[in-house]
């Protein structure tokens, strides 16, 4: 309960480890104020833990599983303490597996199970659950206290279009609260209620139109159990796929192909584009398209829009591909909405073109087409449901499956990705992509793709060096000056990922402190390769970011065409259908608008008093 500042011990000078102690009779050296758990881990001593998550410096000390038995000079006899937040002391002895410590670790997990809904087979985390793991690690063999009524009395929040928050499976580790509050800076989650009724709740309201959650999904990535997850729409997708009257179109995002193979035991960062195409065909999808194609179109539209704004002296322009970022701008900073590019995201561009251009080209009835998109993102579900992105109640994108749902769908179809023979895109209209589109999935990628094309438009020639390494990197906010030449000259650009840093940047833009021409925003740290809809890790946060990033840059290097405007299918789209970027038709089909969704969230004292628990109520 008392950790107050992030302390990283990795890479610290061992000479600073001056505290001598014994853990399981082994001499250990610890840093001052270091926790027993951290010291034990550095000395390769295992202690079972649950609520703690080192990667985000989270030790709330709430699960109380990591108890150990200690002796030290300030106390007579042995004490039981939680190793995650108890500091080392000179001369301390620690027993992580004394009979008493083991019994208490085991009983703790049994007590955690008491009000935890244990229909494991129906849970989205089945077989991939940290609670199941820890039960095994402490040797749990009985479950004496389980109370189904108590478990089922806990709430399930199904109000969001993108997420389900099933408190029946919550172990109150508060990792979701920490990631939302301290890392993403949204602070949309609060702890509510007392005793068994203690739950994670949305601030102010569960009504998705009124609360400040932006559906970035980072909370889902850190949840140890199945308490947080996406709204499962696999059956909706299957309904379309199995309906012979419907033409199903699948698109998948740039990041999906590099962040999916792990689920089937392939090395992290394996490019499984061909496997995904083959799997889609096998389950009966009619047409497999690539969101990358739409990313190239987005560059044409957004780049042209940006050039126009630069000529008018309007700045900065923010990118608009990231739906959690759009949610964030609409609910947290509606005053900056005019600065956002009006270009739709690649998902929505693809869906729109698939229902307008493709029917013309392939002679399919437009109203029989259903677009299923596979995204490393849960906010894409919100985006697909936006009233601006559909007509007469029919949404342009019909179903959004997260990478995780797609994995479950393949399992339901008995497909093992590892053994399937990779295939390739075959649609002649909407599946080719440039290297510029491929890198959309990582922070800095949209910016780099845009610069490659804008430079060419301004100068009538390509960049000497296509790879703009000054735009790459992993710092939260990066800035660069890019000389676009011609009448535009040097422009100042910024790239930000993670909403904590995004908020800082937006504040700087609003106060006039920051002076940028073009700003790329990705709500998830790292960009889409680590999106809130991507595969989960256990006891780790974003462990595969670098491998995925590397692969995505390799995809770019291997493409024949590395600039969006040189994508032949994109050129054909404009020639045969849209005329030109930002043409009236393009504007009608591929651009959108935003709305101020900030709500007055003032409460009355009376409401607060009614909501108070556990205090001495006077009247």
């Amino acid at each position, binding site marked *: 309960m008392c950790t*107050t500042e992030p302390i990283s011990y990795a890479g610290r000078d061992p000479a600073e480890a001056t505290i001598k102690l014994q853990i399981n009779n082994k001499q250990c050296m610890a840093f001052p104020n270091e926790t027993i758990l951290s010291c034990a881990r550095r000395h390769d001593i295992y202690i079972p833990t649950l609520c703690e998550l080192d990667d985000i410096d989270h030790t709330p000390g709430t699960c109380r599983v990591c108890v150990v038995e200690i002796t030290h000079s300030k106390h007579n006899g042995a*004490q039981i303490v939680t190793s995650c937040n108890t500091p080392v002391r000179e001369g301390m002895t620690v027993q992580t597996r004394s009979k008493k410590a083991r019994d208490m670790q085991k009983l703790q997990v049994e007590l955690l199970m008491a009000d935890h809904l244990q229909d494991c087979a129906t849970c989205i985390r089945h077989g991939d659950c940290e609670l199941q793991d820890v039960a095994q690690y402490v040797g749990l063999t009985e479950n004496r206290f389980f109370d189904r009524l108590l478990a089922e009395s806990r709430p399930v929040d199904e109000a969001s279009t993108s997420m389900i928050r099933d408190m029946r499976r919550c172990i*109150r580790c508060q990792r979701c609260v920490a990631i939302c509050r301290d890392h993403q800076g949204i602070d949309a989650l609060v702890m509510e209620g007392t005793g068994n009724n203690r739950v994670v709740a949305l601030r102010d309201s569960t009504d998705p139109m009124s609360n400040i959650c932006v559906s970035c999904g980072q909370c889902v990535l850190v949840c140890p159990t199945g308490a947080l997850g996406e709204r499962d729409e696999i059956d909706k997708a299957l309904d379309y796929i199995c309906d012979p009257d419907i033409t199903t179109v699948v698109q998948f995002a740039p990041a999906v192909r590099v962040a999916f193979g792990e689920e089937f035991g392939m090395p992290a960062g394996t490019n499984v584009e061909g496997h995904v195409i083959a799997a889609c065909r096998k389950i009966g999808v009619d047409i497999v398209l690539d969101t990358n194609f739409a990313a190239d179109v987005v560059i044409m539209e957004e780049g042209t829009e940006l050039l126009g704004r630069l000529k008018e002296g309007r700045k900065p322009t923010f990118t608009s591909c990231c739906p959690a970022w759009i949610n964030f701008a609409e609910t947290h900073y509606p005053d900056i909405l005019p600065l956002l590019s009006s270009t739709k995201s690649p998902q929505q561009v693809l869906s729109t073109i698939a229902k307008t251009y493709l029917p013309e080209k392939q002679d399919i009835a437009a109203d029989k087409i259903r677009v299923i998109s596979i995204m490393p993102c849960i906010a894409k579900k919100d985006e697909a449901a936006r009233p601006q992105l559909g007509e007469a109640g029919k949404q342009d994108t019909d179903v959004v499956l997260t990478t995780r749902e797609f994995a479950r769908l393949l399992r339901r179809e008995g497909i093992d990705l590892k053994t399937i023979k990779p295939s390739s895109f075959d649609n002649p209209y909407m599946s080719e992509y440039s290297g510029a589109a491929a890198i959309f999935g990582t922070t800095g990628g949209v910016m780099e793709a845009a610069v490659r094309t804008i430079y060419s438009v301004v100068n009538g020639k390509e960049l000497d060096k296509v790879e703009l390494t000054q735009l790459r990197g992993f710092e939260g906010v990066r800035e660069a000056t890019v000389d676009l030449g011609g009448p535009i000259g040097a422009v100042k650009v910024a790239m930000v990922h993670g909403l904590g840093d995004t908020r800082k940047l937006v504040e700087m833009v609003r106060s006039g402190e920051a002076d940028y021409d073009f700003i790329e925003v990705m709500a998830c740290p790292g960009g889409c390769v680590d999106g809130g809809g991507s595969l989960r890790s256990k006891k780790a946060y974003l462990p595969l970011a670098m491998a995925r990033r590397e692969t995505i840059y390799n995809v770019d290097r291997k493409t024949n065409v590395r600039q969006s405007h040189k994508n032949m299918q994109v050129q054909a789209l404009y020639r045969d259908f849209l005329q030109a970027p930002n043409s009236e038709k393009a504007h009608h089909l591929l651009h959108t608008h935003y709305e101020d969704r900030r709500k007055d969230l*003032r409460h009355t*004292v*009376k409401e607060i008093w009614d909501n108070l628990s556990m205090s001495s109520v006077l*009247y």
Partner: protein
Amino acid sequence: MAQVVYGVWDGVVHDARRNLPGTDTPLAALRNFDEFDEGNAVRAFFADRGFFVFDESVSLVDGLFHYINKAAEQSCGACTPCRMGTVLIRDALDKMRRGLDSPLDFDDIEMLADQMKETSLCGLGQTCCIALLEVIHHFREQIEKEVADHMPIRAQHGMAYMTAPCIEACPSKVNVPRYIDYIRDGKPENSLGVLLQKYPMAATCGRVCVRYCEQACRRKFVDEAVGIKTLKRFVADQQKGPHALKFTREMIQKPLADGMKVAVIGAGPAGISCAYHLLLHGYHVDVFEKQDKAGGMAQIGIPNYRLPKDTLAMETDIIVDLGGRFLFGQQLGADFTIDDLFQRGYKAVFLGLGCQEGTMLGLKNEEQVREGYFTGIDFLLKVHDHVDGINTFQLKGDVVVVGGGNVAMDCVRSAVRLGADNAHLIYRRTRDAMPADTEEVEEAEKEDIDFHTLCTPTRIISENGKITGIELVEMEETEPDESGRRSVRPIPGTEHVMACSTVIAAIGQQVESQERIAEEGIDFNHWKCVEADKSLTTSRPGVFAGGDCVTGPSTLIYAMSAGLKAARSIDDWIQFGTPRFFKRSRMRELINENAFLANDAVETPVRNGYRVHNPALDPDLRKKMFSEVEQTISLEDAYTEAQRCMRCYRLYSVITKHSIPEGAA
């Protein structure tokens, strides 16, 4: 006197039946345990350190059920052992006391209780099973006998009470750990809601409170006390942002008829607090104030750089939001009498008169001075008018302030801001003995104020009625007396003169116009304070009093707690003709008189994490102006600071012969 039949305290077993006297336990010297309320004997007592039984026929199973039931009700649910353990043990004891089969036997209960005691996150979980464990360890055959025949146990009367050292230290008994929890939970508005249950002036309190709670905070055994006041100010300052709470008349649970009106005299912290609680009780309240603004000493006595007046006004306006009326420019004795008020139909009167008459130094020839000599309170009034733009007030030359309390600090720091070339503080004892807040003293030092301690004035020097200097004498400390307290005495021959233009005597205040008020049937005691009993009833029926006019110059939080207590007494008096028994106060009396709340050290290692501080304006800049020196902490800092609370909750319960009367709450 109540005799303990058996019990365990701090691990020592006492059993009169088995001739185990346990003489070195407090059992031998229990105070005030004979009856809980009149004619209602205390039969047993359960606490965080053990339990005592006074009546052999008490059922331990039922008594422990009530105790653990309270723990289950109050468990915050954050940590696993307390969240589940309290519920499982409560349900088992409940089954047992009803004569039903329990899913858990005493071995299971012991295992769970051990788990809670050893592994819980906070003080509640760590201590709420101690009494139970002592019973299982030392009186197991007795509880087994109680449940052996599977017959329902006769229900017992009593009550349970949860508190913490910080709560008991606070005059208003604010549930401090709870409001800190709400910050940690991400609900600062609920945190403010907890404060608003006790008083309306949270932002004011968050700036100027003397923090009895922080002195009691056990975190100091680890590193430093939790920044309770800093956090209070943080949540109260949310009122200025987009999440400000709306005060509406829905807060009034049951509005009373038009005739149910009460007069509050004095719009200071005591009067505001009393008016607030009376309004919430449904009364119609008129507040009479001699000044033209509300706030009392908080308005005129605390300078703007510590308490901005718009902040204060925002909080006193709550009275108006709730339907109360301020009648400004109305002074008791000059503009109206208490008789008038009763004639106008007020059912009761609250005197929150304050102590607004400054005490002069009492030196020879001080009456001859007409210019440059003020009492602290008169001086602060001039400062107030200056900041308000009513009358410009400037100082130059050397300014001398006499006194060592907060009023003295306010005077001397204001003198700097008003242009004094040098500001001096004269105090007869040592710096450490100053009654002022340590922080106030430290901030004053930063603002280049000259401290002259162990020094006292002996003569005022003036020319043509204008101050030119002050004669001082050095003091020395005497040897400690029997009680260990050192006194001070002048050192003969050390007299010296300090040239100065202004002298401010900040050495004390008393109630204004005492004679006239006494004529209305209000008795004063020999400290020249209004005489009032525990329920704040004065010598005149229907008239109640609280705050500085009863206690002498004291703190904001004492005044606000008096307002709450008086409101309760006034409500009782109007509704029932007499103040009623208040069971939580009685419980506190038991705990405090017997010093049950152990101020024990923290023996489990805890990671150091030092407290956050309010950002402050640079001393060189702030010396020149009256803008607020301290700023609100950031949200990140508030979360960090809230993490430091160790939640030292403790649970107490009594079993009594009869049911305990339900008082005001």
